[in-house]
C-alpha cells in the first residue's frame, strides 16, 4: 500500500518506520525544514516532503491521489481535519485516519468526515484506568480500540456464582464466558458446567459492561 503521513512527530515517525518494515510505501510530510533534512539523510527508501500539508500543492507533491491511506498525525486538530478533508474531497483518498489531540474536538472530526479519528488520550486513559484498578479482573487484550475486552476473572470463595450451574447464572447482556481454567484443565463451558471457587474464568465483554460482569462474578467491584 502507499501511505502518506502528515506530521513527523513521535507518532508519525514510529508509524512510518513500522509501515516501512511491513513493506509499505511511505511518504512523510512535515513543516519543519531542519527535521525534514535530517530525516532525508537518516531514513532510506521513504519520500520526505518539507511543507505545510494543509496546502493542496504540498499534498500533490506527495502524490496523495495515489495513496491508499492518508494519516494525519499533526499536533493541531484543525490542521489534521483540513488535511484529511483535502485528501478525501480533493484527491479522492479512500481512507483517512487522524490523531485526535484533544478529545473534545472529536465531534469536529466527525462532522468533517474523517474516517477514523484516533483519540489516543482516551485510549491511554482507559488502559491506565484498567491497569490501576485493583480487582480480580485482568484485561487480557482488547479488540476494536478497546471496546471489546477479553478478561480473566479469578473466582473467589465468596463469589455469588460459586458452585452454581451456568444456566442458572444470568450474565449481563453482551457478555459471554469463553472458557474456564481449572488447575491443568481447560473447560469450554456449557449450560451444565458448574463454576467453582478458584476457577479462572475467561470472558468476552463490551468495555462499558465490564463492571456489570465483574459484579456478577465476584460480587463486588
Amino acid at each position, binding site marked *: 500500500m502507499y501511505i502518506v503521513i502528515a506530521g513527523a512527530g513521535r507518532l508519525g515517525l514510529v508509524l512510518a518506520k513500522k509501515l516501512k518494515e511491513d513493506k509499505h510505501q511511505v511518504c512523510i510530510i512535515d513543516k519543519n525544514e531542519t527535521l525534514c533534512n535530517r530525516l532525508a539523510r537518516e531514513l532510506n527508501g521513504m519520500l520526505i516532503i518539507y511543507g505545510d500539508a*494543509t*496546502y*493542496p*500543492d504540498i499534498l500533490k507533491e506527495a502524490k496523495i491521489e495515489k495513496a491508499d491511506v492518508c494519516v494525519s498525525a499533526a499536533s*493541531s*486538530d*484543525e*490542521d489534521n*481535519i*483540513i488535511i484529511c478533508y*483535502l485528501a478525501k474531497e*480533493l484527491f479522492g483518498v479512500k481512507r483517512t485516519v487522524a490523531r485526535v489531540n484533544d478529545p*473534545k*474536538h472529536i*465531534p*469536529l472530526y466527525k*462532522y*468533517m468526515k474523517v474516517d477514523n479519528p484516533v483519540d489516543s488520550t482516551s485510549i491511554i486513559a482507559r488502559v491506565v484506568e484498567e491497569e490501576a484498578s485493583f480487582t480480580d479482573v485482568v484485561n487480557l487484550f482488547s479488540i476494536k480500540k478497546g471496546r471489546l475486552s477479553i478478561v480473566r476473572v479469578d473466582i473467589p470463595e465468596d463469589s455469588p456464582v460459586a458452585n452454581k450451574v451456568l444456566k442458572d447464572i444470568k450474565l449481563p447482556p453482551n457478555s459471554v464466558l469463553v472458557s474456564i481454567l481449572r488447575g491443568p484443565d481447560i473447560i469450554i463451558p456449557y449450560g451444565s458446567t458448574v463454576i467453582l471457587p478458584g476457577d479462572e474464568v475467561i470472558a468476552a465483554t463490551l468495555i462499558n459492561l465490564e463492571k456489570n460482569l465483574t459484579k456478577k462474578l465476584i460480587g463486588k467491584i
Partner: protein
Amino acid sequence: MKYVIIIGCSKTGKVLAEDLSATENVVVVDRSLKVLDSLREDFNGKKIWADALDINTIEQAGTKEADAVFLLTGNDNLNLVMGKVIKRKYEVEKVVLQVSDSLKKRIFSEEGLTIVNRTYLISEVLKKCI
C-alpha cells in the same frame, strides 16, 4: 436587530465588533482575555472567553439563533473547519470567514459560505485608486 457572532477578536474582529454592537446584538468569542479586555468601553455586547475550536463554545454563543457568524481568527484552518461545521450543523444563514490563502478560498467556497481574502480585497481597492 440581528444576532451576530464574531469569533476571533483581534484587528478586524475588534473593529467589526465595536461597530456592529451599536446597532446589532453582538457576541464575541476569543481565547485571549487580553484581547477581549481591549474592546472599547462602549462595546455593547457579550464576551465569551473560550477556545473557538469546540462545539460547546459554539453552542454557548447561541449559534442556533444567529443571523450571521464571522470567523476571523488568524488561523485559516480553524476558520475553515468551524465555518463548515457551523454551516452544516446549525444552518446559519450567513457564515463569513477570513482565509489568507487564495487556493483554499477557492476549494472551500460553497453556497452560503462567504470566504474573504484580505489580500484580494486590498488589491481590488488599490486597483480602484488608479
